[in-house]
């Protein structure tokens, strides 16, 4: 099997400061990788470089055989609308707040060429249902939704075009614990059923344990440890990972 994404020696600096450096890994179809680390560890910088939101200083991000770092901007934008999806921590960054819920989902479909109003609306309704938003809210704007609903809407908007790779930045970040569990269950089901590959950045170890097959631990811009998620969490080898795992408060 060919890797879907090959990340080779990614380095990004901000002046003299290191954002992230020496990051390499292969992601295979259907694999979900978690990236954990404290604030400032470089995990969000890395995600931005991978998703094409930031230009790395060196390195390659090869998707399906093409280097997305050197490809032309229009080509990368096309990728972002079709094979890729990006779920922001704050749903406001990933949604159009002035457009209805149905419009938010439909817009992404239209961006890939859907034109029939009836089909678009039916698909949007179907997706609202999949993310547990009642069909009678289809004409409401996201600003009338709760935080958890907004996040689910953002997920529907992102997944409606059937992407192959989803980037997620703290997808359960600002949510209540009760809403988090529901969202996690939903995400897990969608990822499994659609056979998606995903890269999830979070600082929540419980989230990666439930969602990610494999885990990468970052500190100071470097990858300090990576492996099978439960192995890294239950038998951490690096001093920093040991500290991270032993610092989690027990409920």
């Amino acid at each position, binding site marked *: 099997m060919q890797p879907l994404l090959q990340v080779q020696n990614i380095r990004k600096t901000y002046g003299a400061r290191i954002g992230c450096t020496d990051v390499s890994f292969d992601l295979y179809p259907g694999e979900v990788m978690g990236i954990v680390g404290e604030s400032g560890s470089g995990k969000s910088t890395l995600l931005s470089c991978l998703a094409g939101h930031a230009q790395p200083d060196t390195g390659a991000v090869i998707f399906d055989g093409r280097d997305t770092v050197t490809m032309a901007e229009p080509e990368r934008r096309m990728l972002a609308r079709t094979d890729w999806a990006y779920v922001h921590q704050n749903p406001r960054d990933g949604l159009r707040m002035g457009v209805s819920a149905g419009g938010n989902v439909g817009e992404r479909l239209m961006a890939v060429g859907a034109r029939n109003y009836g089909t678009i609306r039916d698909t949007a309704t179907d997706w609202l249902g999949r993310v547990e938003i009642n069909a009678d809210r289809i004409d409401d704007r996201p600003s009338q939704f709760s935080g958890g609903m907004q996040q689910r809407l953002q997920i529907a908007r992102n997944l409606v075009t059937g992407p192959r790779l989803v980037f997620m930045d703290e997808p359960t970040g600002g949510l209540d614990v009760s809403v988090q569990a529901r969202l996690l269950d939903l995400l897990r089901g969608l990822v499994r059923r659609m056979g998606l590959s995903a890269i999830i950045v979070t600082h929540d170890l419980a989230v990666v344990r439930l969602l990610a*097959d494999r885990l990468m631990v970052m500190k100071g811009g470097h990858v300090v440890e990576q492996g099978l998620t439960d*192995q890294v969490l239950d038998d951490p080898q690096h001093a920093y990972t*040991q500290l991270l795992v032993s610092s989690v408060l027990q409920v």
Partner: protein
Amino acid sequence: MIDVQNVTKTFTLHNQGGTVIPVMQGASLSVAAGECVGLVGQSGAGKSTLMRMIWGNYLAASGSIMVAGVDVAKAAPREIIALRRSTMGYVSQFLRVVPRVPTIDVVAEPLDTPDAHEQAGALLTRLRIPERLWGLSPTTFSGGEQQRVNIARGFIAPRPVLLLDEPTASLDAANRETVIALIEEAKAAGSAIIGIFHDEGARDRVCDRVIDVTRFA
């Protein structure tokens, strides 16, 4: 089916003065299809550690752990995940699930067939979990009920390799009999089984032989 050769394991506690705890060296064992091997030794001897290394949950420092042709000690995460999805099952002592997922879905998950829910229901019935609980999350269940949900989840899909950590602990006599029957059925179907049983009666009934892990200390 399972062939462990010369496995060494140490824990290094970097944040506690770099203390190195050697827990195992030269661990070797092999289990054939249709055979059940019991691990014995007092608490702390390394029974669970050895089992977790076979599951891929703990990293072996050296040696090889062949399970159905894959060396778990060196395999990439995706190879271990593939092994766990289709070949190797593990019944741990603790149930770990996504909150709010109904029991019936938790049990049916490993089985990828259209009748997965029916089979899950049949197994839950066999393990005496009343039907009115099937739609609820097992996180709210009693210890013994959670244990039985865990067992149902572990036995629902036929697995050529099964790892059982105290499967009969905290069960009443009737449920214990059911679990022993499940283990015997898995053996008859050709599963290679490694088990930890403090329940000596159960161990004597299902294990073809036992291995004392204290000799790997």
